[in-house]
């Protein structure tokens, strides 16, 4: 894809979503995450520098920036998956609602803050057992209500119609796009307050990507969504708020309209218009 084509498309999407000022206005909400002076280290390497931001609840927040800018690292701190990597260190404050993120037991936190990864990672189990997995390990529901929860989650992930007749078939038999929606359904089944999406479409074709994007748009009534993407179009299509990362620093965090129509920083403008990245 040429830069010109990308830019043309981007402008179109931007106009459609944010051209009408009234329509683009999103009511303000309370912060889901409050981040103060956050630093993160891999050994001696500092990957994140002094982050300060508030991630709004029940909205879609997109984190953009070039590869290696720290956006995924930041995302993985929000459900503390970052702790599973040895020799890492975090300083600063993060709160979920009004509770200190680091005061939770990780398993409790991760039930409330779900995550979908770059590559679909369904378990080598049946479709049903994949969706039921989180509910089971958290002991959330009696077995008698499991069927209902599985169906509800698959419907929310827009996968039910495609799999309702083969719930006991291995999840590995699904296509990549279906697998990724299954992973979303699996996360939704434990009713998280937040869903973190780490470049969820990077391994998918354009059609599968479009389905996931539609889904993200619909899910924001259900939970807060934070999505990492290197695809500007994707951010423009789905985001209500956008954070721009560069070299481990948060350059700008704004409502999507402001960010895309009238970015405050020169670096953001340069990145958005494809001058680097």
């Amino acid at each position: 894809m040429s830069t010109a084509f990308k830019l043309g498309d981007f402008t179109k999407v931007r106009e459609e979503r944010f051209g009408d000022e009234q329509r683009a206005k999103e009511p303000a909400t309370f912060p889901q995450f409050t981040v103060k002076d956050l630093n993160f280290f891999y050994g001696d390497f500092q990957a994140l520098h002094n982050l300060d931001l508030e991630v709004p609840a029940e909205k879609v927040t997109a984190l953009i920036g070039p590869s290696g800018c720290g956006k995924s690292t930041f995302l993985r701190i929000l459900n503390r998956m970052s702790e599973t990597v040895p020799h890492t260190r975090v300083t600063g404050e993060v709160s979920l609602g009004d509770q200190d993120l680091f005061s939770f037991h990780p398993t409790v936190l991760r039930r409330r803050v779900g995550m979908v990864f770059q590559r679909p990672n369904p378990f080598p189990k049946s479709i049903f057992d994949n969706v039921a997995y989180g509910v089971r390990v958290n002991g959330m529901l009696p077995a008698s209500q499991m069927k209902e929860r599985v169906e509800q989650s698959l419907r929310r992930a827009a996968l039910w119609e495609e799999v309702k007749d083969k719930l006991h078939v291995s999840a590995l038999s699904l296509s990549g796009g279906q697998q990724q929606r299954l992973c979303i359904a699996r996360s939704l089944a434990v009713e998280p307050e937040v869903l973190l999406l780490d470049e969820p479409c990077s391994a998918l074709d354009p059609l599968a990507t479009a389905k996931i994007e539609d889904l993200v748009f619909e899910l924001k009534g259900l939970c807060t969504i934070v999505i990492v993407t290197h695809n500007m179009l994707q951010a423009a299509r789905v985001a209500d708020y956008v954070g721009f990362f560069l070299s481990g620093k948060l350059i700008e965090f704004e409502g999507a309209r402001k960010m895309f129509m009238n970015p405050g920083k020169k670096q953001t403008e340069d990145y958005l218009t494809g001058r680097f990245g």
Partner: protein
Amino acid sequence: MTTAAYPPTSKKIANAVMLSITGICAFLVVAVLLFILGYLVVNGAKSLNWAFFTKLPAPVGEIGGGLANAIVGSGKMLLIAAALGVPVGLLGGVHLAEFSGSAFASIVRYTTDLLNGVPSIVMGIFVYTLVVVPMHHFSTLAGGIALGIMMIPIALRSTEEFLRGVPQALREGAMSLGASKTQTILTVIIPAALPGIITGIMLNLARVAGETAPLLFTAFSNQYWSPGFDQPSASLPVVIFNYAISPYEDWHRQAWAGGFVLLTAVLLINIVARLILSRRTSLPR
């Protein structure tokens, strides 16, 4: 000057020599196995009859009889060996694969490799001191324990390898849903690695089934049924050994038949194990 389209003759000769030498060595490996197999089939199969599987050894001088007690004895010892070697090897392997950051894990890994290198006769003497001396007599139990200890290092390392082969993405998937480490291991990692783990254990059992030295000091041998687990017991490898060095023609034939049965059993286990491994569901990358 034009560039030659073909390499000089010296390179071609070097290639040909390399191909021949490596090919001959590879062929030798196959030839040795085929030779052993062929010899056992020729000598063993013709000595094999129904009585071999059903009758006790005939008294010295009498023709006929069988090795039923040795077959049952070997089976009982392998059961004990599995009961000891599988849980210890499996759970130890889980520790190495899933909690391997610690200095303790690297010590365990190194020790395991050393243990695997301990000569099997030494293992027999170790179990003799540990089990036979306090019990004051040889027993099926002691033989099984010796074989079980021999199983541990390989069970441990093969379990570790197969668990490590499970993609990190599956661990992350389970943990991101709120599963604890133990839940992740029990409900995702081990099931995903299970075909491999089972294959490793079967190959391991097949290997110790043919061990002779550790049994000489532990189960010893006898000519009768060995009731329970606290009496000396015959086993196929030890009986083959005893019969093969005896002066009786009929015992030699029985030894051939024993060797043939043992090898067939080991081959069957190998084939089944490989079938299990090849049928395993493919994992996501």
